């Protein structure tokens, strides 16, 4: 079915960002508009999700040019789920940033770039055209460059140099892959490519193109040998910015990997083995990296890398159950990683420290708050009724049945490391006695803030924790969703028919 509803999440964020540009220095108006717009976008995303999930795939052919000639936008269960998650976590971050981002930074276009970033994410999730996907990726990284340099401190600029270089390189590899693909197949529409790619004689070159895509998306989603830029840059901007990066930017790379490798390049044995090995090494190296860090936010950054391995591993096994596990993990991870960095921001506000050795006493001073924070931390580790546990069942079981024992070992290793790291974080920051130390004057501490600011700090964390709780306790619904998505990924005929307008 063709409908204009699809484009609404993109359009809403776009118009919001443009409107915000008109209120350049009036940050009070910007704050309110941003909150209202984020809530609206959650509603729009929810509506779109409801329309698509359980019924048919919606498409929109831009300008009325039929696929494969025009640019198509496709809303299937996978993309609408991603949009819903993106709008939920961006709403939480938008609320959190009102009190944590410094005024001077807001004056230089924090909120407009924020909404441009979310627009880029929504566009990337919706597009059915591989060149258009590249354009959305550029929209995302340009806005993220603004974020990472906003403030212009020494570490930020240094982090930005690394972040910029690697992301530019990734884009160029991605663009090269697109060029080769167009030269081979003569089409850029992913559904159209899916049919054409099989009839190409030179399958060796197709394989090379697939590897180019893997490298391009791999840099963006921080998989094993390509992740070093991430822990060097993600901890430099402020907490709200890091959390949107952590929750969504690497995940859009995973989304693109899942999409391209299920639709265009169906992985063969070599590709599966390669991806499985990369996933295992990502888990191990990210985990070991997290273990040695004493800086709280760098530790969290390494945890992002570590957990990317679960999703890539699911892709590498490429069975319905494994993909379902990967998608479930993706759903869980977007919410939990956003929340984790928000918690990092809150802990920093309470302690005024980023080094875990100098933290302490949060549990003694704020017991209720600590219990709230415990929920997402427990789900991250994967304590049974909570959300981190369920996708691991699928992934573990599937790595056993497909006899990927190496991957199984890495999965278990990753879980144990996560447990260790989070336990250490808990005991250092929450249980350890707080020694008296001088307060630094340039930080606004949590207990100095007025009540409404405290509320604005806690509500987003509470909100995301409740979503995590729902994902854990209502796991049956999420499983049904992730199974639908995985089935659609493996049997892509419904997607192709919907885009090309063929009858079923």
């Amino acid at each position, binding site marked *: 079915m063709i409908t204009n509803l699809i484009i609404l999440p993109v359009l809403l964020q776009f118009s919001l960002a443009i409107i915000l540009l008109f209120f350049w220095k009036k940050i009070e108006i910007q704050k309110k508009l941003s909150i209202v717009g984020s809530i609206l976008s959650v509603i729009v995303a929810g509506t779109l999700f409801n329309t698509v999930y359980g019924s048919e795939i919606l498409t929109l052919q831009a300008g009325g040019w039929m696929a494969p000639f025009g640019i198509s936008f496709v809303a299937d269960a996978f993309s609408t789920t991603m949009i819903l998650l993106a709008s939920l976590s961006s709403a939480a971050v938008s609320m959190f940033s009102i009190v944590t981002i410094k005024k001077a930074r807001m004056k230089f276009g924090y909120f407009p770039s924020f909404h441009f970033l979310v627009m880029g994410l929504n566009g990337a999730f919706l597009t059915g055209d591989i060149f258009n996907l590249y354009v959305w990726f550029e929209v995302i990284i340009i806005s993220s460059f603004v974020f990472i340099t906003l403030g212009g401190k020494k570490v930020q*600029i*240094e982090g930005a140099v690394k972040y910029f*270089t690697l992301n530019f390189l990734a884009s160029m590899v991605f663009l090269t892959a697109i*060029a080769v693909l167009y030269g081979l197949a003569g089409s850029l529409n992913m559904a159209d490519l899916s049919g054409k790619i099989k009839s190409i004689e030179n399958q060796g070159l197709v394989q090379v193109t697939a590897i180019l895509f893997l490298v391009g998306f791999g840099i963006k989603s921080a998989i094993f040998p390509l992740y070093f830029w991430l822990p060097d840059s993600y901890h430099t901007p402020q907490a709200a910015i890091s959390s949107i990066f952590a929750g969504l930017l690497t995940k859009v790379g995973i989304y693109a990997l899942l999409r391209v490798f299920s639709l265009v390049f169906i992985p063969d044995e070599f590709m599966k083995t390669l991806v499985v090995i990369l996933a295992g090494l990502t888990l191990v190296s990210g985990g070991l990296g997290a273990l040695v860090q004493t800086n709280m936010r760098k530790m969290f950054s390494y945890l992002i890398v570590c957990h990317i391995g679960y999703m890539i591993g699911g892709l590498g096994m490429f069975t319905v159950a494994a993909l379902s596990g990967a998608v479930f993990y993706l759903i869980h991870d977007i919410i939990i990683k956003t929340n984790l960095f928000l918690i990092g921001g809150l802990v920093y506000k309470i302690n005024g420290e980023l080094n875990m050795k100098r933290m302490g006493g949060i549990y003694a001073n704020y017991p209720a708050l600590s219990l709230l924070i415990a929920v997402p931390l427990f789900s991250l580790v994967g304590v049974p009724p909570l959300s981190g546990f369920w996708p691991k069942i699928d992934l573990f079981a599937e790595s056993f049945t497909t006899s990927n024992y190496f991957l199984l070992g890495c999965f278990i290793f990753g879980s144990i490391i996560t447990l260790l790291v989070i336990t250490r974080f808990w005991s250092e920051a929450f249980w350890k006695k707080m020694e008296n130390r001088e307060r630094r004057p340039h930080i606004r501490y949590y207990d100095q803030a007025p009540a409404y600011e405290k509320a604005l700090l806690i509500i987003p964390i509470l909100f995301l924790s409740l979503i995590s709780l729902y994902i854990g306790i209502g796991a049956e619904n999420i499983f049904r969703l992730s199974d639908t998505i995985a089935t659609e990924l493996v049997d892509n005929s419904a997607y192709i028919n919907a885009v090309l307008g063929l009858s079923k």
Partner: protein
Amino acid sequence: MLRRSLVKLVIGLVLLGNGVNLLIFLLGGLVRGNPPIITGTESVLGQIYADPVPQALILTAIVISFGLQSFAIVLIKRAYIVVNTDDLDKIHSTEEDDDY
């Protein structure tokens, strides 16, 4: 791009970006003097024609890489002012365990 100087790094990136643009152009299949215009008497294109799609793609890619490159130049200028070095090996304070 493997040089340690920031300026040379950016020059490398610019070259790389332009190289990719040329690659798209080449892989589109170059044909001289046959624009994809359907003349009045025919209804489909008869002979081999120049594919317009890669040219549209390059136009987009050039604009994007131009934007990125200008950002990069401003970024290295800023980095030079803040860090006071042009040497990539000296940019390592993100690895130190400082708090700010």
